[in-house]
């Protein structure tokens, strides 16, 4: 009996370890995609409301599920708060608010949120909340067109381009723009 329990505990630990290894493998597995992208670019599709968007795979660190957001007072509306990713504090960006797209998901703050794509550049890391995560698609460099001219200026800033695939026009987000640090200049000294 006790042997059985210990085995179960063992199995649990092993599955946790496997999970961690799997995540690590997943993040490592992105490197090759990045490397042979001389001709093509990997894009990770995701859905916001009714529309599909994509983020270059080179900027994606991992997909994060099941997290609890801690709200931070007096930050822009597009920042839902912060989460704890294995000891690292990562901001949670509500992409729908940022690019002014109606999102259908009921954002339950302090509760469960839909999946988040953790994106990073050299300086910043943030988790983008999306409604649904899609496939990874390979597109030729040339296939990425400039952002739609019909976008309003605020929205266009966050778009790196658009790509037409399977009858869908997919907006490719501009990670560097999304990851611009918030609150960099401080005027706290002014009285």
């Amino acid at each position, binding site marked *: *009996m*006790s042997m059985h*329990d*210990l085995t179960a505990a063992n199995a649990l630990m092993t599955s946790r370890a496997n999970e961690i290894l799997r995540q690590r493998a997943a993040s490592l597995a992105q490197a090759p995609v990045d490397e042979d992208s001389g001709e093509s670019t990997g894009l990770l599709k995701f859905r916001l409301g009714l529309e599909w968007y994509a983020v270059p795979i080179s900027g994606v660190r991992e997909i994060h599920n099941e997290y*609890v957001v*801690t*709200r*931070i*007072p*007096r*930050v822009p509306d597009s*920042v839902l708060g*912060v*989460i*704890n990713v*294995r*000891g*690292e*504090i*990562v*901001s949670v*960006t509500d992409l729908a608010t940022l690019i002014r797209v109606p999102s259908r998901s009921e954002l339950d703050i*302090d509760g469960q949120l839909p999946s988040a794509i953790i994106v990073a550049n050299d*300086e*910043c*890391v*943030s988790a983008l909340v999306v409604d649904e995560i899609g496939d990874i698609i390979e597109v030729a460099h040339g296939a990425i067109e400039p952002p739609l001219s019909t976008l309003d200026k605020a929205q266009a800033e966050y778009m790196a381009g658009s790509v037409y695939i399977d009858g869908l026009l997919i907006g490719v987000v501009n990670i560097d723009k999304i*990851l611009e*640090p*918030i*609150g*960099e200049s*401080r005027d*706290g*000294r002014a*009285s």
Partner: protein
Amino acid sequence: MVEFDRSAFIAKFQEEATDLLQRLNEGIITLEAEPGNRPLIDQWLRDAHTLKGSSRMVGLIEISDIAHRMEDIMVKVRDGEMPYTPDMTDSFFEALDAVVFLAENAGKPAASEFDIDDLTSRLAGLAATGVPQAASVAEPPQEASASASEASAPSAAEPATPAAAPQTSASSEAVQHDEATDEDDIHSDDDDAASVGESSSSAEAQPARQGEKSQMKTQATVRIKTSQVDRLLNLVSEVVISQIKDEQRVRDLRMAAGLSVEMQQLWSRIRSTMSMLPIDEQNMLDADMRIFDDLLGSQRRSLVSIAKAYADDTSRTSAVVGDLQEQAMELRMLPVSTVFNSFPRAMRDLARQYKKDVELIIEGGDTELDKKVLEEINDPLVHIMRNAVDHGIEPAAERVAAGKPAAGTIKLSARQEGDHIVIEVSDDGAGIDPARVKAAAVRKGYLTESEAKSMSDREARYLIFEKGFSTAAIITEISGRGVGMDVVREFVVERLKGSLDVDSELGQGTRFRLTIPLTLAIIRALLLRVSGQTFALPTSSVEETARVEPSEIIKVEGHEVIRRQRRTIPLVPLRDILGLDAIEQDSEGGKIPVATLAFSGHRLGLIVDAFVGEQQIVIKTLGTHLKRVDNVAGVTILGAGEVVPILSVPDLMANGRQLTGARMRRTGQVKEKQAGPRKILICEDSFTTRELERSIFEAAGYDVETATDGAMGLARLREGLNPDAVVTDVQMPNMTGFELTKAIKSDETLAHIPVIIVTSLERDEEKAEGINAGADAYITKSVFNQDTLLETVERLIR
């Protein structure tokens, strides 16, 4: 100013140089194996060039010279003018070692123990001939013979030790001009080795010993990027958190085992009762009951044994995790002397700058502190010491008259007290005069006369931490600008999560006391709840937590206050500062939880929903994306994995005071003045200066009135001109600027007008005369520029 800042820059240079030197050293090692590695040579040259430039910037000319010589050699190698020979390796290493030594001892007289000229001239020789002029005695012979400069092989091939020395003959000077005779070069090198060695009498022993030492050193230490250490610490704190969860689970498991024991006991009671029942029914159940009996027994045994094994394992792991955490923290600990060592030099510069005689005593340099804290602590300490030299230590004559030694003493000490480090900067100077501070505070509109009267001396001393406050009676270029103690204090509180206090006895001296946590990573914090969310507040700034009766809250002019220990403390709901929504909640018997913050001599009562408790927390930043958020200094992760924002005391204080209207009076005044354009009276006999000043003020939006001498200026004032400030020259016909100042300050209707003296009289006695006359600022023309002038005037017009 430039003089003063140098120590700070030297520290930065040292940091940069450490990295450059490491790369340069590594580069040489790689070059030895691949002499034709062009990208490496280019990188190496860039590094050497950076080293040259940076060292020159901070005034370390010797390093700059050495770097320059090394560059010369490497450029020739790059351009193919001479081959890279392994012999060069030694020369480069010797040069780099010299740079390391010079960089480490930057600004200290120790540098003179090194024969720099000799080294640079040998490097120059190498650049000219391609043959090392350095102490190649330590070079293994086979390397020398493999080189292109084979001519040198015979002598270099001699045993690396004793034998080489006696051949010493030619002086390095001679070598430099000697182009061809390689033999001589080599011989002279031995001589040089002797002069490089500090006190050794035998030239040959020195290089060998140095080599041994540096080898030992590389074995004993490993250079690790601080970012790597930080990442490690991050992971360790994760382990600590899951360990805490594990301990909780041990308790849960024990409870489950206890339940199982109870269940079995209950079952045996039920069984014995059932055995009293009629036999028929017992028979029917007998078999099942026996099985159930066994099951319960094995469940209990299994649970109890798992719980015990788990508890044992967890307690063992706890001990290890505790050690792991401690050791990991220790990785970042460095002695404070790494910062303190640059202070004697800084103090010498300061003393000279302020023309004071000051002795600096340093104690407790071996006290260890987190590297992050150390990086931050230099600037505040320099600021405090500057303050001590400027305002604390009196001029020698004054000191002697007061029966003190002519030279002032400033003592800098560090010691550990519990989980804090206490750093004190004390001087034996004049001390802070509460009366003078109060007077200045009243003059500058921080206090009313009656507030000043009711203020204790201790509170008055804390006024020096007010924003923009200056204890100096007058503004000069280098001090009294009120940029100082407030910034230092805010820095200590906000960045170092510590506190800064001042203690002073008039005539005896002043003591500043910095209390900072041993590490930036962990602080004590009060956890509290507001609008359903938990926040952490650093305990170091919390003066009191109390649950006050609603009847204790007094309404004054629409604002709520409470009285605590004969003080009136403004109250503000933390929820309002943070912009959170109110939520329904049960109040604890009608009492209202209030946390009183004390910062910069001000108090502020924060109304919260509930106190959760006090505990040690690990500080983390808000991540890379949120660089700065108002009111939030960082976050922590609690045992249960919950992320909790840590509040920033300086921000809360500033925003809270705005909400309570504590600043209304001053902002109100400013607005009133800004209603119309501000008016300036310029008294200046020189046409050029007058028009220059006029254009400066007009460009800044002032109305400018002018007078060509003091008498005319005074007349215009008495006519009722009522400007916001008077800017005056000193040497003018009819009435000097000093006389004008005196006249203004002794006239009750004019005394409130700030007077700014702009003059070419720079001697201290003249400044003193200006102070005596009652001027509010004294700007010398030699440093005159439009920013200083405008800034000074704007500072005075409140």
